[in-house]
């Protein structure tokens, strides 16, 4: 299908909205927009970070998912207690594939599930005693852990348990960090508030712990903030940051440790990858410690080059030379990747619906492969995310905020993209519709996609999905052989 004009896209939105009752239609209309790159502020065209409508299939998560699953979960040498009923912890355990180095169960614990397994009596009589006992048991069974975080599930807030008091007492007894996180799932409209709460907990309980202590620093200390090392992403980024002469002193929070986090205020520059989930702590560090922060994008060679030059701009000439050296070193490798895959992917159209930073950051990588992103949207973005997205997207492309299952399906049916990138809940629906699909939350169990090494894998995966022979075999053979000649031939 050829490119839609602005009017066609607008009428497409109207048609899709027609099935809703009037009130719902009015509300949803604010969340769907046709992109106009000349608009300065997203508020003029799209509403975001609002409560989802009751009755529609939203794809959002909860505050607990944002804190336990995204921000705290990957901190490998801490034990994260899912405080409350057992399900939340079990279903959020290791699903994001935040890779790390270490012996799981001995000195690292990111893949394990610790829960207080609330029962009826804990709801009635309170769970503080159980939490105290649980922390003692942890200390006995896993003495090499470096700290504990208590991630509240909904009932904790509802019954009003005082996890702060328990944590303070336990921290004094163990002489380790014990962080109470008030990330009950019912808070806020999506996982976004969970990120904020987790950031605030880090600020209050972790960040200042080593203030005033000495640290052997260099002028080139940087941190990677908001990279959760999905499939090894942070490693793929770190490798060439170090190659250009920088020293990465902390990873937040993929493959990160509590010691790294406590040392972060000693950095010279905070490199911020996921703006949505970690901008709060970066802003705080800028104010309290005077550390500048910068957003970067390591998807696809064009954006990597841009980002490396901007990072180098904060440092002296040795780093600037280092950046150029890295860029020239990887150029032939990138050219080979593009030469191989671009002819197979050129002109293909992509629709995305993910969260965090991907709906805008991966656009550059697709463009490097000659592909075009025709629709994009976030699960839990705020206005500032859309401010940044509008500039990246082409004119008259589709933007959708907190899209419902129905809307996304209808958009895909009408726009007929060659590839859809979204989550696991969407994956099988679109594959059964005969549309190539990549699960873009954790790179469809592949990765890394960040950095130079990641781009090669990204290009291979996109080719593997799009040009898979299975898409031509969606109709079973007995339905293909309709004509008499063919039937005779078969007989």
């Amino acid at each position, binding site marked *: 299908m050829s490119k839609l004009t602005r009017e066609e896209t607008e009428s497409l939105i109207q048609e899709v909205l027609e099935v809703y009752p009037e009130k719902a239609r009015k509300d949803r209309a604010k969340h769907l927009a046709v992109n106009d790159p000349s608009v300065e502020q997203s508020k003029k065209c799209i509403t975001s*970070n609002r409560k989802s409508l009751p009755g529609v299939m939203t794809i959002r998560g909860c505050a607990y998912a944002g804190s336990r699953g995204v921000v705290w979960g990957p901190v490998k040498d801490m034990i994260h207690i899912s405080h409350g009923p057992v399900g939340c912890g079990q279903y959020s355990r290791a699903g994001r594939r935040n890779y790390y180095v270490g012996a799981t169960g001995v000195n690292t614990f990111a893949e394990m599930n610790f829960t207080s397994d609330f029962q009826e009596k804990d709801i009635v009589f309170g769970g503080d005693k159980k939490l105290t006992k649980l922390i003692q048991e942890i200390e006995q069974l896993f003495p090499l852990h470096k700290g504990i975080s208590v991630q509240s599930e909904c009932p904790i807030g509802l019954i009003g348990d005082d996890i702060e008091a328990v944590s303070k007492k336990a921290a004094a007894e163990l002489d380790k960090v014990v962080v109470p996180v008030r990330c009950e799932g019912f808070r806020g409209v999506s996982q976004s508030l969970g990120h904020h709460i987790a950031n605030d907990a880090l600020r209050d309980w972790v960040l200042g712990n080593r203030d005033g202590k000495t640290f052997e620093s260099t002028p080139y200390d940087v941190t990677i903030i908001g990279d959760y090392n999905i499939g090894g992403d942070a490693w793929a980024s770190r490798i060439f940051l170090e190659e250009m002469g920088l020293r990465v002193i902390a990873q937040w929070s993929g493959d990160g440790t509590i010691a790294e986090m406590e040392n972060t205020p000693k950095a010279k520059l905070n490199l911020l990858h996921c703006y949505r989930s970690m901008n709060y702590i970066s802003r705080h560090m800028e104010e309290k410690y005077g550390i500048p922060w910068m957003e970067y994008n390591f998807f696809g060679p064009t954006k990597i080059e841009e980002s490396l030059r901007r990072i180098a701009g904060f440092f002296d000439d040795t780093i600037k030379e280092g950046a150029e050296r890295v860029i020239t070193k990887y150029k032939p490798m990138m050219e080979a990747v593009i030469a191989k895959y671009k002819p197979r992917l050129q002109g293909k159209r992509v629709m995305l619906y993910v969260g965090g930073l991907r709906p805008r950051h991966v656009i550059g990588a697709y463009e490097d492969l000659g592909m075009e992103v025709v629709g994009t949207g976030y699960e839990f973005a705020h206005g500032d995310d859309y401010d940044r997205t509008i500039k990246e997207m082409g004119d008259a492309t589709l933007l959708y905020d907190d899209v419902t299952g129905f809307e996304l399906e209808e958009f895909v049916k009408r726009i007929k993209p060659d590839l859809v990138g979204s989550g696991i809940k969407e994956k099988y629906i679109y594959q059964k519709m005969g549309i190539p699909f990549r699960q873009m939350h954790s790179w469809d169990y592949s990765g890394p996609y960040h950095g130079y090494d990641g781009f090669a894998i990204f290009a291979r995966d996109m080719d593997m999905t799009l040009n898979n022979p299975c898409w031509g075999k969606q109709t079973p053979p007995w339905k293909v052989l309709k004509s008499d000649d063919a039937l005779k031939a078969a007989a």
Partner: protein
Amino acid sequence: MANIMIRKTAEGGLSFYLPKRDLEDNIVSIEFDQTNKWGGELRLANGGTYYVDPLDAPPRLPISLRAKRVDAPE
């Protein structure tokens, strides 16, 4: 009253950030910008106006302050 943060932009101007409203915008004008008085009414690029109590000296930026909404476009 709302918590806001004022920081320097890369271009050298001031930017205003109000997390509760997701509002991040450039400050067009600031009422008092003298060595002994800093603050007052802040006019934003989107047309809104906020008031912060004047400080005795220009602060080290970024800084978190409490601001009153005088007039906002929405």
